[in-house]
């Protein structure tokens, strides 16, 4: 069964803006799905419609077989939403926010208290349960929204830029947590501007641009489309010029740092053999940019041109 099935979804805002122009999407049960796009591409509108925060203009949305128009409450029970903006009551304390959310889903108070405790402990917020939410740090506020979204044990978790503005340590621990709940059976849809995040977490990906899905495939297939790898090499000494190596392009960053683009069919062995032959020693190497990032930009460029 598909966790999510969207057909010909359109949204026209007042003023004539067509935010979605017939979006089709399928997310399989148990998937970790990335929905990527530039700002204003239509990601948040799509998520807003799925989560009943935005009224669609036309098209259909089904969540675990439930139609949004015919069974809106069944759809809502399946979904947990972590929105992009902080949307909890800044004056309420952390525990009350999560317990109230459970109450909105009809979970009796005794059970709601237990579930809130579990979620807050999972997200390492239990010590903060009595403090006003406005006093939390940015990372804690994000985790509070995750705890709130999980309190009714949704089958589909939608994460709209969940790690925006969060430091790398917390981001990594959040990634581990998302992987854990996905492994436990929760389907996850993720939007993010950190493409490294999507690449490391997601199994399938859709790219949306100007209200249309321009790519929807599995992550492995998409990454295989990358035809070259860009590497930044650190050398043991300054080098004025680099040797010509077939299939590789070199450009100087500074005397001891060079940017090398290697075509996929060339292979890195050829590069290193060429450098070795010229007596150049590489002391360090890193990717210039994330592979997905490059593909994402290529796809957008290709579509727009």
């Amino acid at each position, binding site marked *: 069964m598909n966790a999510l099935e969207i057909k010909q979804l359109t949204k026209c805002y007042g003023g004539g803006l067509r935010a979605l122009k017939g979006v089709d999407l399928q997310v399989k049960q148990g998937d970790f799905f990335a929905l990527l796009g530039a700002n204003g591409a239509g990601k948040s509108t799509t998520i807003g419609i799925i989560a009943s925060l935005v009224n669609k203009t036309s098209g259909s949305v089904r969540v675990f077989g439930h139609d949004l128009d015919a069974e809106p409450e069944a759809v809502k029970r399946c979904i947990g939403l972590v929105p992009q903006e902080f949307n909890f009551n800044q004056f309420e304390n952390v525990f009350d926010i999560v317990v*109230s*959310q459970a*109450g*909105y*889903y009809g979970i009796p108070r005794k059970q709601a208290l237990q579930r809130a405790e579990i979620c807050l402990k999972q997200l390492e917020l239990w010590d903060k349960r009595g403090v006003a939410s406005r006093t939390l740090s940015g990372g804690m506020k994000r985790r509070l929204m995750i705890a709130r979204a999980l309190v009714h044990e949704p089958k589909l978790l939608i994460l709209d830029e969940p790690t925006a503005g969060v430091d790398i340590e917390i981001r990594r621990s959040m990634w581990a947590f998302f992987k854990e709940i996905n492994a436990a059976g929760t389907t996850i849809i993720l939007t993010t501007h950190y493409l490294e995040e999507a690449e490391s977490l997601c199994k399938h990906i859709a790219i949306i641009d100007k209200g249309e899905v321009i790519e929807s495939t599995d992550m492995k297939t998409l990454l295989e489309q990358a035809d070259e790898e860009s590497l930044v090499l650190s050398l043991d000494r300054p080098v004025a010029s680099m040797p010509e190596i077939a299939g590789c392009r070199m450009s100087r960053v500074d005397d001891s740092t060079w940017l090398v683009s290697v075509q996929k069919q060339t292979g890195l062995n050829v590069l290193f053999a060429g450098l070795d032959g010229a007596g150049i020693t590489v002391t360090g190497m890193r990717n210039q940019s994330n592979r997905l990032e490059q593909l994402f930009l290529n796809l957008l460029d290709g579509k727009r041109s």
Partner: protein
Amino acid sequence: MFNKEYRVALLTIAHKEIRRFLRIWVQTLLPSVITTSLYFLIFGTLIGSRIGKMNGYDYMEFIVPGLILMTVISNAYANVVSSFYGTKFQHNIEEMLVAPIPPWVILTGYISGGVFRGLIVGLLVTVVSMFFSDLQVANPLMMLLVFLLTGILFSTAGFINAVYAQSFDDISIVPTFVLTPLIYLGGVFYSIDMLPSFWQKLSMLNPVFYIINVFRYSILGESDISVVSGFAVILVFIVGLVLFSLRLLSKGVGIKN
């Protein structure tokens, strides 16, 4: 229609609303008690003694029901308009929109908060009024019923105001320019018999006029209008505003894109 999940959701919203105004009781409960005490002192005791009888009652006795009800109206309205607008403003209305709660549960939850605040303030002011007048309640059950219906009516009106409000200014404009004139011209301080014919007829369009008269009847056993027609008008207004509010919520006016 009213399953267990809805009941839990309704209790959650109502509990949250009641907890909110009790937590800030200095802002929500106390001001009305102080203001109304001043009304009792100045209009009732000091000026009232020079006015003489109104419809056969001391002026103080005549204005007490209207003043009590005025606090119920303004508190029920203020509770819902400020709370629901605050919820919209902070976007935490989304917590309810994503949950499987039908519009009538959301509306009833907010109305419960408004009614409860109106009831508490109304009872506090009633107790205070006993220090200024020899208040004898002719029909206590009817008095509570009017408290309840008034709370529902003006909580719903406050809800509609909050749905349309785009800024904090918008939630104070209606109480200042609409609600206060309706209350003052609804016969709190005078009997409709004192007005010229045209203004008497115009007063009949004011819902507050009916509420105050029905409430006055519950306390004094005396009213400018028939109590049955008064209740009928109040119920018509309640049904109309509730249906309109449910429509706004179902369509997501002011809360959904």
